[in-house]
């Protein structure tokens, strides 16, 4: 599974969810896989994409929020997992595209190449539903767990969660159960060369994103 394959699958399953992408290759792949008004592409602030997603999930509890982070980026802001574990936002899913390298800067290995386990880190920070997936089938199953939960409880209910069952996953019998709370999916992916980049029109992208979510920035200038 390449990162682009995984990104396309997530976009296909995202429905009306907002997607926040970390800078560099995750954002490039999101644009290529499916540009949509509910995408927010960062062009800087490495490490902060998951925090943006958390803030958005807190602001809009009835919206679904997906973050496309990278392993190198999340390693810059591991404390964000503790904050998510503390607040337990049920409408937030963080997908870490773990290619085990800093691909955007030339492929230098990250600590995950040497065994650092980001899903275990998430579980240790009280994110119970944190799982590592290695194939499109496993990623689809993890995302489907989210969708099933939403259908069962309605749009304003909790995002669903694929509780990790790593031994069964390794045995080829990956049937994640579903529970409430935030989700972290660490997707082990092969690097793929990005084929497009989003516009570097930061303000226009932001305004498009906010309008799609029903929160035009103009409304924030003079509230009440």
């Amino acid at each position: 599974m390449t990162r682009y394959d995984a990104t396309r699958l997530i976009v296909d399953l995202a429905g009306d969810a907002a997607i926040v992408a970390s800078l560099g290759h995750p954002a490039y792949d999101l644009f290529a896989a499916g540009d949509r008004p509910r995408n927010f592409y960062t062009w800087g602030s490495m490490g902060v994409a998951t925090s943006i997603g958390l803030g958005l999930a807190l602001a809009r509890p009835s919206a679904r929020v997906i973050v496309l982070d990278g392993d190198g980026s999340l390693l810059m802001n591991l404390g964000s997992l503790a904050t998510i574990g503390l607040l337990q936002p049920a409408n937030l899913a963080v997908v870490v595209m773990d290619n085990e390298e800093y691909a955007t800067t030339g492929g230098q290995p990250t600590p995950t190449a040497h065994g650092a386990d980001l899903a275990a880190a998430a579980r240790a920070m009280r994110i119970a539903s944190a799982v590592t997936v290695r194939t499109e089938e496993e990623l689809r199953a993890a995302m489907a767990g989210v969708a099933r939960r939403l259908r069962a409880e309605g749009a304003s209910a909790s995002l669903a969660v694929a509780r990790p069952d790593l031994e069964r996953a390794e045995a080829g019998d990956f049937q994640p159960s579903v529970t409430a709370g935030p989700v972290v999916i660490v997707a082990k992916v092969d690097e793929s060369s990005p084929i497009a980049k989003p516009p570097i029109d930061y303000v226009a992208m932001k305004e498009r994103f906010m309008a799609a979510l029903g929160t035009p920035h103009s409304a924030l200038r003079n509230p009440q």
Partner: protein
Amino acid sequence: MSHKPPVWASGVCAGIHAIGSRDVVYVPDNPLSYVLRVFESEYREVRLILATREEEAFGIAAGLYLGGRRPTVMCQSSGIGNSLNAITSLLVPYEIPLLMVVSWRGDDAGEWNAAQRPMGQAVRAIFDAIGVAHATIPSPDAALDTVRRVGETAFRTNTLGACLLPRAMTTVTAS
């Protein structure tokens, strides 16, 4: 122990509340604990969100804004140093506004900790260099108006505004 909060702390909370900010993302600091207590006792509708690091707080605040909120970030001046990349490569280029309330250490008001001096001396120049408007709250009675003015300007113009709380004011009640 007195239960009456210091005037400056009540003013800061009233100013934040007056601009419609209902989400305060913070990293703790000793004087800011008075502000947090006022929020907890008098403004239960204001959500207090603890971050593990200041840069994370700015990221959370950016997401809150994108979702339609008017966020405030509270931290110590040292934490501005931890946050410069998020401020300059996310908030500034995307024109994401917010209010900062900064507990200012390392100024000339009797700082005892040399580790606080360099950033404390530089924080206003750094704000100037990266385009963050800032005002130092001159007295406890001016806290409400200063916070309201800086915050209102930030959200009306899609820019960043910071209010500095000098130790000369806050150490009357905290050390």
